[in-house]
């Protein structure tokens, strides 16, 4: 054979190694997430999970669960939002989110009625945050109207604001904004789409 040309040498150089890098890279990425967490550099850890209401994105800060996103919201865009609002030090990692996934699995399977996990409400400010704190007290299977929620959050006139607090809830499912319905009994809007809200309330009512 001949002496290879420069082009052949360069093509061989940049070719991926035989068998590919995928396994080694997966191992190194897991190690990076662990070391980043140990060094206090993992500001946001996230994972995805499948659920009866579609794929979910779960994100946690060291303080707790900070975001749950439905597929409808576009997970890539949500990660960019988290990067801007919290920190770009974001890695796929089980830290603080594997436990959330386990509890959500139990919830969807009908084996869990309350979540026992730390939440980080830093993405909600002011009155919205007060509303979300209140929502956590609405028990499984119960519902409240936006009017009642506004009153319970300390501002009876702020019915619309209570509605937008629910609509922008960063931690749906775990902070149960789906349990807030219109005064006329209809379901109202939901971040995951009205069909998801309907499915959740039907499940919780045991029907």
């Amino acid at each position: 054979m001949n002496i290879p040309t420069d082009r052949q040498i360069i093509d061989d150089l940049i070719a991926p190694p035989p068998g590919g890098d995928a396994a080694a890279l997966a191992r190194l990425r897991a190690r990076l997430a662990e070391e980043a967490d140990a060094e206090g550099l993992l500001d946001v850890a996230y994972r995805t999970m499948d659920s009866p209401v579609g794929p979910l994105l779960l994100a946690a800060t060291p303080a707790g669960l900070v975001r749950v996103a439905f597929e409808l919201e576009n997970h890539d865009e949500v990660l960019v939002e988290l990067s801007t609002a919290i920190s770009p030090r974001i890695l796929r990692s089980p830290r603080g989110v594997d436990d959330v996934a386990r509890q959500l699995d139990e919830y969807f399977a009908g084996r869990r009625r309350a979540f026992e996990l730390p939440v980080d409400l830093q993405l909600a400010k002011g009155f919205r945050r007060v509303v979300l704190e209140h929502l956590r007290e609405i028990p499984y299977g119960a519902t409240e109207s936006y009017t009642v929620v506004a009153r319970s959050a300390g501002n009876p006139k702020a019915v619309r604001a209570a509605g937008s607090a629910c609509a922008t809830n960063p931690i749906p499912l775990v902070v149960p904004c789906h349990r807030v319905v219109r005064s006329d009994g209809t379901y109202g809007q939901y971040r995951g789409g009205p069909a998801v809200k309907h499915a959740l309330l039907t499940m919780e009512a045991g029907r």
Partner: protein
Amino acid sequence: MQPFEEIVVEHGPVVMRVCRALLGPVDADDAWSETFLAALRAYPDLRPGSNVAGWLVTIAHRKAIDQIRARSRAPEPAGGLSEALPGNEPGPEPEDTELHGAVAALPNKARLAVVYRYLADLSYAEVGALLECSQAAARRNAADGIARLRRHLGASPASPKQKDES
């Protein structure tokens, strides 16, 4: 700002190949991990529009030199960064192909220039900055490296002997 996870997914493979070419497969893992940990630390301060690949390879270059210093326990080299990379002992262990073995056997500046120019896809200006030499010298070193690889592979036992054309 792009979430750091996307940076790891996009550039992780190239940084791994650079680390392997500089250090061999065993030490490459540590260099890769240290590179991305240092990058994660500095990432929020990275200027928008920066050349992320070049930034990562620069960090990998420094981490590789740290590894080699630790490995040889030699005193700090007085010269430029490429002086810190010793001849070829113990050098990168030849990887899975003859070509990678040939890369490992190149003189340091030629090896680094080839790795940074072709594996990392940096410009000659960026290669020059890393090797602390001019852009033209970076280009000469890369060309020298490729020419040596060509002769080495052409003359290797795997294929019939060829005349050395130097």
